C-alpha cells in the first residue's frame, strides 16, 4: 500500500479548482510520507486535460476512451477499480462534488476500500490517516479513522488551498492502459438552467434569505428592506426547494457565486453549500437567532435575534440615519 491517487475532475474541458487543491494537499502529504502522488485523468482520445496536470504529480495515469468524453460514474468506477487494484494506493482522493458523490460510494463498495466523505482535513499520525469532516450542518466537526492502512476520501471544495502550483512542479511519468467499458448508464447531454434576466452575480448589495424565514408571506418584509437599501434579493437552497424564489436567485455551490460590496444573510445558518458562494463579498452581515450558527464565523458583523423583529428595527434606523444626513 503506497502512493496517493488523485482523481482529476474536469467538466467540458475545464479542470475544476478542487483538483488543484487536492493535488497540492496530496503533494504535501506525499512529501511527508515519502509516497508518490499519482493523478488519474480519464478523458476522450485527444483530450487536453492530461496536459494541464502534467508536471503537478509524480505519475500521470492517463486513460483515453470515447466512453470517457463526459463523466459517467459507471465508466469511472470500472476504470478506477482496475487502477486501484493494480496500484494499491494508501489514499485515494476525489472531490466531494456532484461527480465524486456519484462515484465514490459505489467504488468503495466495489473495491472494499473504506470511505470517509466530505473531508475538510487530512493528516497522518502513528495511528494512520486522521480525517476531519463536519456533521450536523457544520455545527460540529468529527475526526474519523480508516480501520485499515488504506482508504478513500471525497474532499470538500476550498477545504485546502491550491497555493502556488509552481511548488508542485516535477517530472511526471506518463502511463496509460487499454480499457474495455461495459455500460448500463448512458450520458445524454447537459442542460443549463433557463435564464430569466436577473443576474445576482452583478449585484453590489445582496440581501439573502434562508430557512429562518419560515413562511412565504414573510418574504414581503425582506423584499421591502432590500428595496430600501437598493439591494437584490438572493437566497439559500431551502427557499428554492420550497418554490418561493426562482433558481436564478440561489447563492452557493449549486447556485451562483456572488461578490457584492454588502451581503446581508437573514435566517441563513451558513452551511458550506451556501457560504461557498459568498466568500468574495466585501462586508458580510448575518442576522440569526442561533448564536452558534456557522454563518457567524465568516460574517464581519452579526445580530443574534429573530429576523422578523430585527429587520423592521434595522429599516427604521436606516431611515432615521438618512433623514439626519
Amino acid at each position: 500500500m503506497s502512493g496517493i491517487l488523485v482523481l482529476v475532475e474536469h467538466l467540458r474541458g475545464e479542470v475544476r479548482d478542487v483538483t488543484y487543491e487536492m493535488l497540492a494537499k496530496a503533494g504535501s502529504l506525499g512529501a511527508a510520507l515519502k509516497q508518490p502522488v499519482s493523478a488519474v485523468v480519464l478523458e476522450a482520445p485527444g483530450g487536453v486535460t492530461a496536459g494541464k496536470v502534467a508536471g503537478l504529480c509524480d505519475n500521470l495515469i492517463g486513460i483515453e476512451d470515447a466512453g470517457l468524453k463526459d463523466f459517467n460514474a459507471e465508466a469511472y468506477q470500472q476504470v478506477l477499480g482496475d487502477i486501484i487494484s493494480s496500484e494499491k494506493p494508501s489514499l485515494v482522493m476525489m472531490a466531494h462534488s456532484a461527480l465524486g458523490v456519484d462515484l465514490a460510494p459505489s467504488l468503495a463498495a466495489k473495491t472494499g476500500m473504506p470511505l470517509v466523505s466530505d473531508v475538510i482535513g487530512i493528516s497522518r499520525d502513528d495511528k494512520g490517516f486522521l480525517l476531519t469532516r463536519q456533521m450536523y450542518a457544520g455545527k460540529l466537526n468529527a475526526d474519523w479513522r480508516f480501520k485499515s492502512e488504506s482508504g478513500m476520501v471525497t474532499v470538500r471544495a476550498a477545504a485546502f488551498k491550491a497555493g502556488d502550483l509552481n511548488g508542485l512542479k516535477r517530472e511526471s511519468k506518463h502511463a496509460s492502459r487499454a480499457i474495455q467499458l461495459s455500460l448500463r448508464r448512458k450520458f445524454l447531454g447537459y442542460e443549463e438552467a433557463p435564464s430569466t434576466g436577473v443576474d445576482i452575480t452583478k449585484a453590489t448589495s445582496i440581501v439573502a434569505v434562508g430557512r429562518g424565514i419560515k413562511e412565504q408571506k414573510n418574504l414581503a418584509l425582506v423584499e421591502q428592506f432590500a428595496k430600501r437599501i437598493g439591494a437584490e434579493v438572493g437566497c439559500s437552497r431551502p427557499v428554492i426547494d420550497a418554490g418561493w424564489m426562482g433558481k436564478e436567485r440561489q447563492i452557493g455551490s449549486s447556485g451562483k457565486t456572488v461578490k457584492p460590496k454588502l451581503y446581508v444573510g437573514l435566517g441563513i445558518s451558513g452551511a458550506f453549500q451556501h457560504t461557498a458562494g459568498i466568500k468574495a463579498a466585501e462586508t458580510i452581515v448575518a442576522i440569526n437567532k442561533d448564536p452558534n450558527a456557522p454563518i457567524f464565523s465568516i460574517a464581519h458583523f452579526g445580530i443574534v435575534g429573530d429576523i422578523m423583529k430585527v429587520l423592521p428595527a434595522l429599516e427604521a434606523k436606516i431611515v432615521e440615519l438618512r433623514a439626519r444626513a
Partner: protein
Amino acid sequence: MEIVVCCKRVPDTSEAEVAVDTSGRDIRRERLAFTINESDNYALEEALLIKEKLGGAVTLVSIGPKEADDVLRMGLAKGADKAVRLTDDKFAESDAMARARILARAIAPLKPDLVLCGSQASDDGEAQTGGILAELLGLPHAAYVAKLSLRHDGLSGSAFKVWRELEGGLLEVLELPLPAVVTVQTGINQPRYASIMGIKRAQAKELKVLDAAAAGVAPGDVGTQGSGTALEKLFVPVTESHAEILQGDVNEASGKLAQILKERGLL
C-alpha cells in the same frame, strides 16, 4: 412498479444548538426534535407520484429504534403501502457501508424496480448510502437527481431519464435501465402532508420489524466489526474568525449596525 424508499429518522438541528455528549462521540439528543431526513421526504414524495401515475406499491425501509416508527407511520399515512424497520443491538456503531449492507439485505428480497434514497442525511452529511446500496444490489445508479422521468418519449420500456444536479445549476441528463437506485435532491417536488384519513388508514398498514437474524444480516458484516471506518471524536470547531456581534436589544443592535453600514458607505 415496485418502489423502495430508504428513510432515516434524524434530529432537526437546523436551528437548534448541538452539544457533544459525555462519550465524546455522539450528540445530546434529549432536547432535540426528530423528523424524517429532508431529502428522504422528497424521495418518498417522488415514489408516491410515480405510483399514482404508473401503479404499483411503495415500501419504506429504515434502520432505527422504536421511535423511527413515527417516521414510517407518517410515510404510510401519506400513501406508502408497507414499511420495514431494521433494528438490533448488533447494528450499533455501523458506518455507512455497514448500514447499506443492512438495507441491502432487507431490500433485495423485495425485488424492486426502483430504489429511491435521499441525496444525503442531514445529520452525518455523508451522501454514501445510495451509491453503496446500488453496488451491493448490483444495480446502476445516479446521485443528486433533480428531475426524473419514467416512460419518457422515445425511450424503450425499461429505460428512464434522470437529470443530475451539478455545480452552478448545470444539469447532466442520463438514461438508466430499470431496476436502478436513484438518490434524490431536495426541491425535486413539493412533498405533501398526510391527511387525517391517511393517518387513520396508516394504522392498519403493515409495519414489519426485523432484527439481524430475521433480515439475514451476518453479525460480522455490521457494527464495529463490519465497519471500515470509525468516528474517533466529535468536537465544536474552533473558528479562525468570528463576527463582531452587536449587543443590546433589537433597537440598540440595529442602530449600531445601521451606523456601521453608513460609515462603510454601504447605504
